[in-house]
């Protein structure tokens, strides 16, 4: 009897191979986007030094992780819905969340090289030093899992074209109006308080603390907010995927 874990491995293999033609290109584009975020914000904000530079360089990976989860992983579901394979895949005796896990894994693998590269580019470009903790990897997974659960819920419930529109809008908001690359103090106070209950700021804080632990920390409150969002969104995604018309 194939276990859920084996099914996850096989489905990941299925999805990876299905993307195999474009895989190298996707890895390169992801890398370019991640590096571009680090360098681009640097240009926008002028000469950066010290903590501000460190803030930016350690925020960029979060943006990549959110984009993977929120845009790339659900894009596979939307694409499968459009090409008609989603419905057939759903007839397989596989627990619904395994689909989410497999897609998320594929995209995490696609984005990992770029994310790591972006951190290195940031270190070189802004002449900063990092203090990386072992738990930065599970932390990164928590971040992209939360984002993927949101993206997947939307992709499961909305028609593919609307779902893509929604996720693109969210990415725009995250890039420009979220305390990921710049501190929350620079936002209007109402926006800062909205971010206190949204998962984006805790995501950034967590990754930042994992990369530069001697400068940044994450408090228990934001961490709980993030964990709650993750649990809630995964449950919601499961329900959305199990929904029958």
């Amino acid at each position, binding site marked *: 009897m*194939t276990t859920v874990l084996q099914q996850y491995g*096989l489905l990941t293999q299925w999805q990876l191979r*299905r993307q195999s033609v474009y895989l190298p290109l996707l890895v390169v584009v992801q890398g370019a986007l991640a590096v571009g975020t680090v360098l681009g914000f640097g240009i926008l904000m002028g000469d950066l030094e010290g903590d501000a530079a460190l803030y930016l360089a350690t925020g960029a990976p979060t943006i990549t992780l959110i984009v993977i989860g929120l845009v790339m992983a659900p894009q596979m579901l939307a694409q499968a819905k459009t090409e008609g394979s989603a419905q057939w895949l759903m*007839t397989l005796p596989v*627990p619904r969340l395994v689909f989410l896990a497999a897609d998320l894994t594929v995209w995490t693998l696609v984005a990992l090289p770029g994310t790591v590269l972006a951190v290195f580019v940031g270190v070189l470009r802004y002449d900063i030093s990092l203090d990386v903790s072992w738990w930065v990897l599970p932390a990164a997974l928590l971040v992209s899992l939360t984002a993927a659960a949101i993206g997947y819920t939307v992709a499961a419930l909305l028609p593919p074209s609307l779902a893509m529109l929604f996720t693109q809008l969210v990415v725009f908001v995250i890039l420009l109006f979220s305390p990921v690359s710049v501190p929350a103090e620079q936002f209007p106070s109402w926006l800062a308080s909205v971010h206190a209950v949204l998962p984006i700021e805790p995501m950034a804080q967590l990754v930042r603390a994992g990369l530069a632990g001697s400068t940044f920390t994450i408090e228990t409150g934001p961490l709980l907010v993030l964990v709650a969002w993750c649990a809630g969104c995964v449950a919601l995604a499961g329900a959305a995927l199990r929904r029958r018309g």
Partner: protein
Amino acid sequence: MTAVPALDVADVTKTFGGRRPLRANDGVSLTVPEGAVVGLLGHNGAGKTTLVNQVAGLLLPDSGSLRVVGHDVVAHPERSRREISVQAQANVPITGLTPRTAIELVGRIRGGSRRDVARRTDGLIEALDLGQWASTPAHKVSGGVARLTAFAMTAVVPGRLVILDEPTNDVDPVRRRLLWTQIKALADDGAGVLLVTHNVREAEHAVDDLVILDRGRVIAHGTVAELTHPLRSTLQLDVDLPPGRAVAWPPCASETGHDGLRARASVPAARAAEAVAWAQDAVDRGDLDRYSVTPASLEDVYVELVGAAGETSTHAPVPAGHDADPTEGTLR
């Protein structure tokens, strides 16, 4: 028989909302015993795929029950799905994979051991004569090969209920025969096979039982012999006309169709000699190009049933020997 059927659908109704609600299934009941091939026949839009999606637990019925090997699909879709394998109507895109890897991966996802799946995959590839393309990237194979691959993906580790939605589409005549053999083999190995199709001619030779669906309702069910029984004493006379000529049927023939230069009539079997004599005479005179006399086929029955249902839009005849549908009433 006390054995639990592979599929038991009882009085299933499914309506899709919207400004003009569409009743896609209207009191549908059918049974697929283990070891049998049951054909589900119907036009486009008859409600076949809607029914399949409910059996697979992708759609919820408004009312009625669906049981797969005794498991309630509505209450326990994940449990039921373990007993089902489905070949979808549309080909599942497998770009990036080869037919062999696709078949093997699905087999293992469905719970087969690596060795069993590899052996069964080899067997199916050979039986369907796919060897030439087994290791070709999927984007380079033809539609027919993709269709056969989709079948093999369904049959590699078959459920106790196998649902095949138009499995022969795009498949060449030679491999079609191989495919039919494999479909029969699934049933011989004990699976219940629900074969969804609008290809009446092919189904006639491949199925044990038939269910004919029209506008969401079961309008007839039974074996091919039972369904064609009312027409057993009727022959079909087909004639090809020269351009510009009208057909003057003999008294023994009553016209059932006319389509350009082809016309069709039914003839009582007892008066076959009379009809043949008339037709041969007409050919000799140049009134007909050629003719043929054949026994009434399932297609004739099907056209009669579906045509009747379409014309009267109230209720369709149920062939002799079958219970009338208890929910029979108005269509729509």
